[in-house]
């Protein structure tokens, strides 16, 4: 079982595995893999704790009811699976800021966390605006040859590349 303890697998082995998982999700659950609705539902659940049941009347939460569903369990699974993989390979470590960020932007935790928070807000809004994320559109949408998936996936990377280039080659350089 040495391979379970390896820190990295070939990206092609990983990709083929994810492709097979997509087939399994269609076969066993009649669903494509996706991750971003879990965040929308959780956000609704948290808001409901603060503001009560009137949150459920919001048109968005009528469409995406704040409850634990298949996709929510999938994201919980991603957390568990990644933890197992990191523990088995010994790569689990508390890391306050990523290395690639620290090399260019310095090692202030507050700066990285604030920037990441802004990025997270924009991405969370964008994911539900577009109706999916890198999994739901980028993998599941494109593999179904959905027009929405291909357009969204291209826009994800156009926006992502332009922003990363601007951030790393202009603003932080």
């Amino acid at each position, binding site marked *: 079982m040495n391979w379970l303890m390896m820190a990295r697998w070939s990206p092609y082995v990983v990709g083929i595995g994810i492709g097979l998982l997509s087939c399994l999700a269609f076969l066993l659950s009649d669903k494509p893999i996706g991750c971003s609705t879990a965040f929308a539902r959780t956000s609704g659940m948290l808001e409901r704790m603060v503001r009560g049941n009137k949150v459920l009347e919001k048109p968005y939460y009528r469409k995406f009811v704040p409850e634990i569903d298949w996709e929510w369990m999938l994201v919980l*699974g991603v957390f568990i699976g990644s933890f197992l993989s990191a523990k088995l390979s010994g790569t689990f470590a508390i890391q306050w800021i990523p290395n690639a960020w620290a090399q260019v932007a310095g090692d202030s935790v507050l700066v990285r966390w604030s920037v990441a928070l802004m990025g997270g807000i924009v991405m969370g809004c964008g994911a539900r*605006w577009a109706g999916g994320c890198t999994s739901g559109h980028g993998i599941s949408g494109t593999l179904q040859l959905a027009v929405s998936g291909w357009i969204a996936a291209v826009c994800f990377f156009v926006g992502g590349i*332009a922003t990363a280039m601007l951030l790393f080659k202009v603003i932080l350089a």
Partner: protein
Amino acid sequence: MLKTIHARKGLQLLIGLCIGIAFGFLLQKGGATTYDVILGQLLFTDFTVVKIMLSAVVVGMIGVHALCSIGLTQLHPKPGSLGSSVLGGLLFGIGFGILGYCPGTVAGAVAQGWLDAFFGGVVGLLLGAGLLAAIYPKLDKAVLRKGDFGDITLPELLKVNDWVVVIPVALMISGLLFWIEKTGF
């Protein structure tokens, strides 16, 4: 048989969890839960993310369409519009470039101990998704319905059998991956 499995709610949650565990395990082993790898892709210095995504698409595309052809499943393409897919996609991309994780990999990054993925990523995603829910009624009318094209697929658009698109797309992606390997990325 499959319909009875699909109808059992508790079992479905368990299947979702198991598929998620395998998905998270693979993402972490592939390096896709690491900020440096994702940023490397967006800056064209590391092609790991593209290699993972494109090989997943080739295998999944052939597999899912084969399952459809033998009647074991059906496609569930999402609806889209220019206002939703293009503007939302670009907005997602901007956030993606700033955060350096996506909604799936951010959960995996937290699980390997990366704190910026939690305090920036997860908290931000929850706030962003909540914000979208708050503006949804107005946004839906003003933007999301603009340039609506529905849940159409490329083969439907071209009015051809699915396989007429699946095979050339699979060949083109495989060719692109060979080219990426050959040029040494």
